[in-house]
């Protein structure tokens, strides 16, 4: 059972829970920043990439003579030139043992598999001159049929003549990953449940599209490699300096100890910089070859075209329920587009969603299967939420459809099926153990702040009067698994690494504290939040804590930042390290105070002898350790400590999001009117930072619902390849949000915290689409494909009168408040 607490009142003497202003900000607001592209080194050379304009082709010849003769060009290198040294790009997560994984070379040698793939590299004394010369590289291609459409690619075989992304592999199918609750012993047989419901219950079948998205971090990726000296140093705009170093060493033959990777200030990632990129490998290879520092910074158009994309799935869903709306089974069949290669964890992204389709609901039977598919498009990988937004979208859309079918308010159907707070800890049909949560509490608070009943009344009134602007209300009661991840679980999923995190605490002689974390921030505010944790636990001033990260030579051990893991895994490692410092300091303090270790107490940064007023501050102990003039026999003169934490479980934040959308039925334009969320992310270290994470997440999720889509043309060119066509929202397209919290502390970590980095993105997309569909359901609409463009909405509304498209599948369904349950659109319940 979970108890929900109100957020504890701020205590003046406690750092945790305070809205501390960020330590990071001073440099960022004054422009004293350390972006990778700011780095200039003596004699530094610049690269320009020559990229294939074709989605799929043989490279028949490359002529570099003219480019080599161009002004200030040092050399021009092709894949063949670099073949010995460039290494390969790895896939760290083969989701099945028989996964088909094409070889991924940084510079293509004889065949290109997506438009944007590098075929040659120009090295010049300036970036402009490199670009000038790149134009002179003459590449001849022999075009091959390109596999572009996901469904067609999945069906293509050598026999039927369908285009193959890699003809030598003989298939576009990479891996089929299946979870079945009957086999796993976590639930019943889903096919039996569906079959039964076809007879006496409700079966809802839908197909949803998760369109392809682009992470579109604001800082374009940049890499500088300096081979001067004994070690090769790489600065890169990456989320994963440690994984990057490992992969460079593993694939280039350079010993890991000879490589130092630094992620300086990194301008956003959202999963998009959770990658080992061809460009990083190329810069590394060129710098080694020439013995000079080399830089490459991508343009925005290169970034959109060649940085990995996200989502891109077709979801076929079958939900069965009893007539009263009690769910009995859920079957999920996915096609996931990998793009041209199986990137670092690309194949695993849908698997991260495999355990989440059942979400907060008590499904007795569940089956998930996912076919990953290779195509001749940019490769896909993690994008904020990675697998979980797709799952949450599907289930939250389906629960609305079920509510319509049964004829009840969508909240009723959710309450009827969700895990109640008394039932925690709860083992789900997907085999996860949810440690804590209180869906009732979060929902009640969200509803109250939202003014749910009033808005429903307004909706009814607008509908009755046939108002040109219709109102819709969207609900999303999400949960997710984050805090990646227990290493053993990752191992069982065949992931190539663990999920632990490392931290160390260095007590400086002057009383300052250096905290080193293996997490690698790029906007999350680790320097601030981690300082708050250390300040509280070690009893030192917040200002005296310095958080160091993002440099493999300083933070020698770490697994970086993604999957909402930094606080719940990295923070926990930090807690362990701090506790070790205290334990190490205790004997020294006792020695200095001439007291027994057993009599020592530590509180608010001070060791004291029980029952006396004798004591020593931790800074004094640190100084004593530094001086080392007087310390106990048999101990080391030092109180620094480090710790590695491997989480015992995932971490399950949840929340209720409510969204009101207005739909202009004359134009199809949709406008957000109100958005309220109440998230339960356990205990909060810094509420200000948490709210910022939620706001940003919300807008990314809303943007999937309404605006963003990576679109390819028939030739395989990304036509939404600039910010002109890839529509990021601006301040004028968004609204201010109401962000609330309830608190069910996580039971699996000391701080009781849960991840928040992805929550907003995961929850908001279905809330928005549910609201849009809710606004126009009375027109016979039960789905609008994302992004919900005005044209799609308008065409759906006007489908009946012949002005638009065909009606959406099952579109005859009436709104729940206005009619009897059951229509012929859905099998089972119709009598």
């Amino acid at each position, binding site marked *: 059972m979970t108890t929900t607490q109100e957020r504890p009142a701020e205590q003046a003497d406690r750092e945790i829970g305070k809205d501390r202003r960020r330590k990071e900000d001073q440099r960022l607001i004054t422009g004293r920043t350390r972006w990778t592209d700011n780095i200039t080194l003596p004699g530094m050379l610049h690269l320009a990439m020559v990229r294939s304009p074709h989605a799929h082709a043989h490279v028949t010849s490359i002529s570099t003579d003219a480019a080599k003769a161009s002004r200030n060009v040092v050399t021009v290198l092709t894949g063949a030139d670099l073949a010995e040294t460039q290494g390969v790009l790895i896939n760290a997560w083969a989701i099945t043992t028989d996964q088909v994984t094409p070889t991924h070379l940084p510079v293509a040698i004889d065949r290109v598999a997506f438009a944007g793939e590098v075929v040659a590299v120009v090295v010049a004394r300036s970036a402009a001159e490199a670009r000038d010369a790149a134009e002179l590289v003459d590449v001849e291609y022999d075009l091959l049929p390109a596999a572009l459409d996901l469904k067609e690619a999945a069906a293509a075989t050598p026999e039927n003549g369908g285009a193959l992304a890699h003809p030598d592999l003989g298939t576009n199918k990479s891996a089929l990953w299946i979870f079945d609750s009957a086999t796993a012993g976590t639930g019943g047989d889903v096919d039996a449940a569906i079959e039964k419901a076809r007879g006496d219950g409700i079966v809802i079948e839908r197909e949803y599209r998760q369109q392809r998205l682009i992470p579109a971090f604001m800082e374009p990726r940049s890499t500088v490699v300096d081979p001067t000296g004994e070690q090769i140093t790489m600065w890169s705009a990456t989320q994963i300096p440690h994984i990057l170093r490992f992969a460079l060493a593993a694939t280039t033959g350079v010993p890991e100890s000879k490589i130092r990777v630094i992620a300086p200030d990194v301008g956003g990632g959202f999963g998009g910089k959770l990658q080992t990129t061809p460009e990083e490998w190329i810069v590394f290879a060129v710098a080694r070859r020439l013995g000079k520092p080399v830089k490459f910074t991508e343009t925005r158009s290169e970034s959109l075209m060649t940085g990995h994309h996200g989502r891109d799935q077709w979801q076929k869903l079958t939900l069965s329920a009893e007539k009263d709306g009690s769910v009995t089974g859920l079957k999920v069949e996915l096609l996931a587009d990998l793009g041209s290669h199986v990137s670092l964890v690309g194949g695993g992204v849908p698997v991260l969603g495999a355990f989440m389709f059942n979400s907060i609901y008590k499904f007795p039977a569940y089956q998930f299967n996912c076919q990953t598919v290779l195509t001749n498009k940019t490769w896909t990988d993690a994008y904020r939420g990675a697998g979980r937004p797709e799952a949450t979208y599907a289930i939250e859309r389906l629960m609305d459809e079920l509510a319509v079918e049964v004829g009840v308010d969508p909240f009723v159907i959710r309450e009827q099926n969700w895990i109640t707070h008394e039932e925690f800890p709860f083992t789900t049909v997907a085999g996860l153990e949810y440690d804590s949560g209180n869906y009732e509490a979060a929902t009640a608070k969200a509803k109250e702040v939202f003014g749910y009943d009033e808005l429903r009344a307004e909706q009814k009134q607008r509908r009755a009067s046939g108002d040109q602007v219709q109102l819709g209300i969207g609900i999303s009661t999400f949960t997710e698994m984050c805090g990646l991840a227990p290493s053993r679980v990752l191992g069982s999923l065949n992931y190539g690494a663990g999920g632990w995190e490392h931290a160390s605490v260095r007590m400086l002689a002057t009383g300052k504290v250096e905290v080193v974390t293996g997490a690698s921030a790029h906007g999350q505010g680790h320097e601030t939040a981690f300082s708050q944790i250390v300040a509280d636990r070690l009893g030192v001033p917040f200002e005296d804590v310095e958080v160091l990260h993002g440099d493999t030579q300083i933070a020698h051990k770490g697994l970086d930042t993604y999957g909402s893991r930094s606080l719940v895994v990295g923070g926990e490692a930090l807690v362990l390290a701090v506790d070790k410092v205290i334990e190490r300091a205790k004997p020294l303090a006792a020695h200095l105070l001439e007291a027994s270790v057993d009599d020592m107490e530590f509180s608010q940064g001070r060791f004291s002898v029980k029952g006396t007023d004798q004591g020593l501050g931790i800074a004094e102990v640190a100084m004593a350790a530094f001086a080392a003039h007087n310390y106990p026999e048999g101990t080391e003169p030092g109180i620094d400590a480090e710790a590695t934490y491997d989480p015992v479980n995932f971490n399950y934040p949840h929340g209720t999001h409510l969204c009101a959308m207005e739909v202009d039925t004359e134009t199809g334009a949709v406008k957000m009117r109100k958005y309220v969320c109440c998230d339960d992310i356990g205990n909060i270290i810094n509420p200000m930072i948490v709210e910022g994470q939620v706001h940003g997440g919300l807008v990314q999720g809303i943007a999937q619902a309404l605006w963003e889509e990576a679109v390819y043309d028939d030739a395989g060119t990304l036509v939404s390849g600039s910010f002109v066509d890839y529509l990021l929202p601006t301040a004028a397209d968004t609204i201010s949000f109401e962000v609330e919290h309830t608190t069910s502390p996580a039971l699996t970590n000391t701080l009781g915290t849960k991840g928040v980095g992805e929550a907003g993105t995961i929850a908001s997309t279905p809330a928005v689409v549910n609201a849009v569909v809710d606004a126009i359901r009375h027109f016979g609409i039960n789905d609008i494909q994302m992004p919900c463009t005005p*044209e799609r909405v308008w065409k759906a509304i006007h489908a009946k009168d012949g002005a638009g498209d065909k009606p959406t599948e099952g579109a005859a369904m009436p709104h729940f408040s206005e009619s009897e349950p059951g229509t012929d659109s859905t099998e089972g319940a119709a009598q």
Partner: protein
Amino acid sequence: MIPTEFAYLAPTSIEDALAALAEHGDDAKIIAGGQSLLPVLRMRLNAPEMVIDLGKIDSLRGVRDDGDAIVIGAMTTHHDVLHDPLVAEHAALITKAVEHLADAQIRHRGTFGGALAHADPAGDLGAPTLALGAEFVIAGPGGTRSVTAEDFFVDLFETAIGEDEILTEIRVPKHTGWGAHYEKFVRVVHQWPIVAVAAAIRSDGSTISEAKIGLTNMGNTAVRARATEAGLAGAEVSEEGVRAACDRAAEGTNPPSDLNGGADYRRHLATVITRRAVLKAARG
């Protein structure tokens, strides 16, 4: 990304600019505010050998009263046009259109003449200048000529400005007292309009006596909604009063189809957006 190499001239008079243009011909490109040209050069979709900057020709800037018209210098920035009292008083439709043109930074730098010479059918200035019957003054080696808006916009990105000519000013007939509104339909605000409507309406508040309506992005150039204009004369200022006329807004147009909407959807949008623009213009 960086443009290809080019030489640069910043003449201080129209004569010098014309001379430079005559000398370099096809190899030269004029830069006004540069807000559309520079991205093209950065993308290297053009590689002129010479860029001639009109930024130092002071006589091309500013707005003046010229009897029955106001005259806007081609190098007047959007920002200056937006805040000009003469424009607001006599050509409010232009003020309204400029208000939401691109963004603040681009309005500070981009110029009225530059945008018109660029002749993007999705640009915001074609429709209002066309609706108001503006005349375009073009200087060339043989002197100065004046072209009506109808003749100025020739086709996609094409105007009546010759290769050796420069647009110097735009004369906008005064429409003092006319109601005006520019209604723009976009998915996100920094996007080019999917459709936009420029409406100038003369009315006594209850009945429309005359309407001038320009459409943005409904063809290869801005176009007039002539059938709607004719139908609005004498119409009552109300949803129902203007509906029939506005339903004809897309007549004779040839809108594009793109990621944001098909031609049929744009035709529909044009009727709705026109009605909204007309009512807002008429009601002030």
